[in-house]
């Protein structure tokens, strides 16, 4: 809400500029920004039109003679259709400045001298929707006689300065000028003073016809009305109009404007109805019934439902309570008698209704966040007094009470020592009481104990913590010296799984892979394409877009997207990984389990063409090497098995392996299927994905240090011819099983199939390394093992040793 300094001055001395005030209020209470109106305006005066003649060379321009407080009237050519003789208007004189750098210059318009411009409000920077309707399409006409030549900018309130407060939901007490005055007053140690509204006793009459029936008792705590007879509906005086448009409220007529004015003044929404338009004189506050409609000013009608709290009369909805008045009992120029309402409606009900019907605004905003039930009656009195002062009514009814809740101050009990301890400062009781007084609260002190009485205008305050916030902010956070918690020592650190994850990611980083972070909410295709854990999909209840509809079941789709994005931008060689959660929802449950996964994708060259190297494109074994190194670093004594699979959709059936431990699949490595690659615009790409939770559960090796062997190793080479369908893994496993105690390593150095090799066979070459850590190995020992190995391979796999 924008707090006008011209208005605030009625309650408080204003001794600083808005920039200073906004800064101080931001630091002690509510985030605020300074606003200075009309800084781009000059040369604006009141003009009195004393003659209007049509322009001789135009069918829509007029020649106006305008008194502007100078010796002679000036001639101004005006094209507005609402210009008329006798009007008091805004004149931008020769040399005047208007918004957007516009400068008014005397000149000729179609051969006629024009000494300035007669202006509309929108031309002075007031948004058109806040300009009174009758002046939206033309010049603005002052509602009463003004002194020609007087400063129009000031009269229009366009010289005002304001503090725009960005009010948090708990500080709705400052959604009115009076509340704001308390806040700014506390900031500067000034108590605001307000005039108590009073009604001329002579006009007050007993109510004898209007009845109020509150049916929805749980949603209405206060409902007060007064009727007023014989009002004259006109436009409001200028001082009301200017305050409204500066509050971004469009002036309508004196009655509606007075109600809005009081809303701004007190923060309490006031409604006015044309009493004569009510079908009967009974007002009911109830839940809407079938067929109730809300008629809006633009002619649209909204169907109301049983969830909507409405004000009705004679079966007709007068308005959606706390949200929007219907146009059926609107106050118009021929209105004579009115009903003025001040009420408190349930915030949640108002909020939901406003949301449901898309009608949030000034009124609902205040009810949603709460209003001061201690000011319901006073704000009603003020509205009635204001209307009477503008339009001298015949009579005013007594207050008619539908329901009223006693407004009582809130008492917060606290201990001075406890308050100080929570703040971390040492205020003396006197200092603390002084701050409490500055806030306009009253306190009683008994030793360390204080009992603070909080007026109803601060309904947000209920507990000691609220009081602490008030005291410390007025004390000033800048005066608070920082300390560190001084309790017991604690041991900080990561959880074991997180330590483990850190280790895995550091291996992948060392392998040259860049870390990525992708979205966990993905589209249906993506989630189905790599559902390798065969889980039930988890879908958002109300997704915003199809792109982010499902919870991911694999990290791979995100990585593929990244590769496509990069390769489309000429970053061809990509090696990336992600560590994150995937979501595994078991049949019959709503809540998916969150599994920690790690996945990588490599595409393009692993070695670049350079002055001393030739490029190499990634292949299955590059990625397998990365995975093996990562698994090595898990320090697990488990045996990781790689077995070919053609069962993972969208992966190459001949270049994919499941990785398992004791038959339990923990992940996979594979090349993307060529069709999938072309569909997703990526070059040859290899991916892997591993369940980190399962890796973490594997038992860890207890490393027992051994000295480096002092005795040399002996190498034997083994070349075999074997059927194509036998995997090297099988061969190596068998070699180890038969290699005896001293076989320490088997390295494959050759894989060949092609010419010179019988079709259906391949040639494999291995280095077999033997070593005895404690003695020199003899050739005999090695030869014995070597023979065993060969014999076994021959008998099991029918190999031919070459």
């Amino acid at each position, binding site marked *: 809400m924008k707090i006008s300094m011209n208005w605030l001055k009625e309650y408080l001395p204003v001794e600083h500029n808005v920039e200073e005030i906004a800064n101080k209020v931001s630091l002690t209470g509510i985030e605020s920004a300074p606003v200075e109106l009309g800084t781009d305006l000059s040369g604006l005066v009141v003009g009195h039109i004393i003659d209007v003649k049509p322009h001789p060379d135009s069918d829509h321009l007029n020649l106006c003679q305008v008194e502007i407080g100078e010796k002679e009237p000036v001639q101004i050519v005006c094209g507005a259709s609402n210009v008329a003789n006798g009007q008091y208007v805004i004149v931008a004189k020769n040399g005047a400045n208007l918004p957007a750098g516009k400068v008014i210059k005397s000149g000729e318009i179609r051969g006629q001298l024009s000494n300035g411009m007669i202006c509309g409000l929108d031309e002075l920077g007031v948004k058109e929707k806040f300009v009174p309707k009758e002046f939206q399409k033309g010049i603005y006409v002052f509602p009463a006689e003004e002194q020609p030549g007087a400063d129009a900018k000031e009269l229009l309130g366009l010289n005002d300065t304001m503090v725009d407060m960005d009010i948090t939901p708990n500080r709705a007490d400052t959604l009115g000028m009076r509340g704001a005055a308390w806040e700014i007053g506390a900031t500067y140690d000034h108590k605001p003073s307000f005039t108590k509204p009073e009604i001329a006793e002579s006009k007050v009459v007993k109510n004898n016809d209007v009845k109020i029936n509150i049916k929805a008792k749980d949603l209405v705590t206060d409902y007060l009305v007064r009727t007023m007879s014989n009002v004259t509906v006109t436009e409001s005086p200028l001082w009301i109009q200017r305050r409204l448009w500066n509050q971004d409220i469009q002036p309508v007529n004196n009655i509606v404007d007075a109600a809005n004015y009081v809303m701004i003044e007190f923060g309490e929404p006031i409604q006015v109805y044309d009493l004569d338009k009510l079908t009967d004189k009974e007002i009911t506050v109830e839940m809407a019934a079938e067929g109730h409609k809300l008629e809006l000013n633009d002619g649209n009608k909204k169907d109301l439902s049983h969830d909507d709290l409405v004000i009705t009369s004679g079966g007709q909805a007068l308005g959606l309570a706390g949200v929007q008045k219907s146009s059926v009992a609107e106050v118009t120029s021929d209105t004579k008698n009115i009903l003025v309402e001040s009420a408190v409606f349930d915030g949640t009900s108002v909020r939901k209704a406003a949301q449901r019907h898309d009608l949030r605004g000034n009124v609902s905003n205040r009810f949603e966040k709460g209003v001061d039930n201690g000011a319901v009656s006073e704000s009603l009195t003020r509205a009635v007094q204001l209307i009477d002062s503008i339009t001298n009514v015949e009579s005013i009814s007594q207050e008619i009470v539908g329901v009223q809740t006693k407004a009582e101050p809130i008492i917060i009990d606290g201990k001075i020592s406890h308050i100080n301890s929570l703040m971390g400062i040492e205020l003396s009781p006197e200092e603390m009481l002084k701050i409490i007084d500055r806030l306009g609260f009253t306190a009683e002190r008994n030793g360390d104990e204080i009992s603070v009485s909080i007026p109803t205008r601060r309904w947000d305050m209920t507990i000691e913590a609220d009081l602490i916030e008030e005291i410390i902010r007025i004390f000033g*956070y800048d005066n608070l010296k920082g300390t560190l918690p001084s309790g017991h020592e*604690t041991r900080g650190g990561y959880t074991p799984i997180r330590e483990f994850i850190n280790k895995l990611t550091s291996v992948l980083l060392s392998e040259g892979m860049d870390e990525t972070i992708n979205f966990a909410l993905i589209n249906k295709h993506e989630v189905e394409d790599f559902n390798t854990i065969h889980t039930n999909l988890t879908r958002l209840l109300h997704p915003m877009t199809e792109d982010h509809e499902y919870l991911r079941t694999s990290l791979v789709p995100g990585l593929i997207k990244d590769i496509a994005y990069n390769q489309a931008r000429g970053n061809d060689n990509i090696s990336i990984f992600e560590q994150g959660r995937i979501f595994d929802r078991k049949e019959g449950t709503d809540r998916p389990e969150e599994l920690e996964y790690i996945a990588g994708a490599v595409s393009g060259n692993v070695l670049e063409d350079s002055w001393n190297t030739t490029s190499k494109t990634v292949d299955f074994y590059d990625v397998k090497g990365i995975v093996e190194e990562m698994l090595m670093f898990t320090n697990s004594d488990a045996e990781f098995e790689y077995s070919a699979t053609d069962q993972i959709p969208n992966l190459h059936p001949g270049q994919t392996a499941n990785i398992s431990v004791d038959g339990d699949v923990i992940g996979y490595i594979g090349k993307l299927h060529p069709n999938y690659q072309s569909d997703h615009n990526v070059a040859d790409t290899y991916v892997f994905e591993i369940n980190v939770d399962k890796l973490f559960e594997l038992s860890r090796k207890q490393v027992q240090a051994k000295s480096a062997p002092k005795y040399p190793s002996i190498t034997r080479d083994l070349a075999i011819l074997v059927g194509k369908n036998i995997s090297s893994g099988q061969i190596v496993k068998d070699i180890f099983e038969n290699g005896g105690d001293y076989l320490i390593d088997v390295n494959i150095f050759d894989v060949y199939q092609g010419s010179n090799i019988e079709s259906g066979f391949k040639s494999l070459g291995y280095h077999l390394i033997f070593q005895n850590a404690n003695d020199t190995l003899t050739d005999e020992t090695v030869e014995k093992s070597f023979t065993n190995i060969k014999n076994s391979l021959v008998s099991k796999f029918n190999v031919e040793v070459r």
Partner: protein
Amino acid sequence: MSLNDKLKKLRESGIDDAKRAEHLQELNDLRVNLLGKKGPITQALRGMKDVPKEERPEIGTLANNVKKEIQEAIEARMNDLNKRMVEQKLQEETVDVTLPAQSHELGTKHILNQTVEDIEQFFIGLGYEVAPGYEVEEDHYNFERLNIPKDHPARDMQDTFYLTNELLMRTQTSAQEGRDMEAHDFSKGPLKMISPGVVYRRDDDDATHSHQFHQLEGLVVDKNISMADLKGTLEALCRHVFGAEREIRFRPSFFPFTEPSVEVDVSCFNCGGKGCRICKYTGWIEVLGAGLTHPNVLEMSGIDHTVYSAFAFGLGPERFAMLKYGVTDIRDFYTNDVRFLEQFKGVN
């Protein structure tokens, strides 16, 4: 020619040959030829029998000296030749050090994770545990336990992706507070934790909004925790992250789960507080929200608020990284263009 002269002549020619040798082989040959058993010096000494007896010692000495001198000349030349060979080898092996290296690039940790880890390390040093939370969370922990009952206006501040009426994508890492408080054994000392992670909100993705982003929550529960402790802790954090010269300031704010609540500004690390484009000419940059944990939140976790007090804070790693490195579009963190990712190699 006398034996004496013969020896002197041999010396002269031997030394001369050694000095002129260009190859090690020549020197080896020279040694064998000149100094060997069949060499001229040995031969010459055979003529000793013809030398008068009294001159023999002198000749013997001369012969030994000649041998020695020739030997020395050969060795000296050998050293020269060896040295020359090494020099030549070094010459041949000289490389152009300005040619590009054989690259062994390490990968780059994502800048958001670098940012988070930097903050984690800071707090681990202060004795905080790093507690991961759930990305799919119950309404109960995400809202109700944080003093945000159903229909609370504060729920408007963060639009939520629901999975069911009771399950949602967490909108804040504060959701972890309730879980950690109820799991903590206070007889073993205070609770000091941070909880980093991914959160989700119903936002359209644009330069400043992302429907997925990161948060890091901090919570300390102990006897006598105060606003001053919160300020001191955040002061130290901001100095760690943004530089030792930084000051912080608190501004009152509102969060349903803290009271008092504050927003925290850090003095601008770009201009030092004088005012610049980054701090919008205010000298201060808003970096996080914090406060003393609301008594209701403590009580809902079974903690007696008259005995214990707590502070909590929440910060956005995206915001930290954007400020610190001048990232202007939050989407850059999630499109994973490697040119973007790799510029942050080793920054933290």
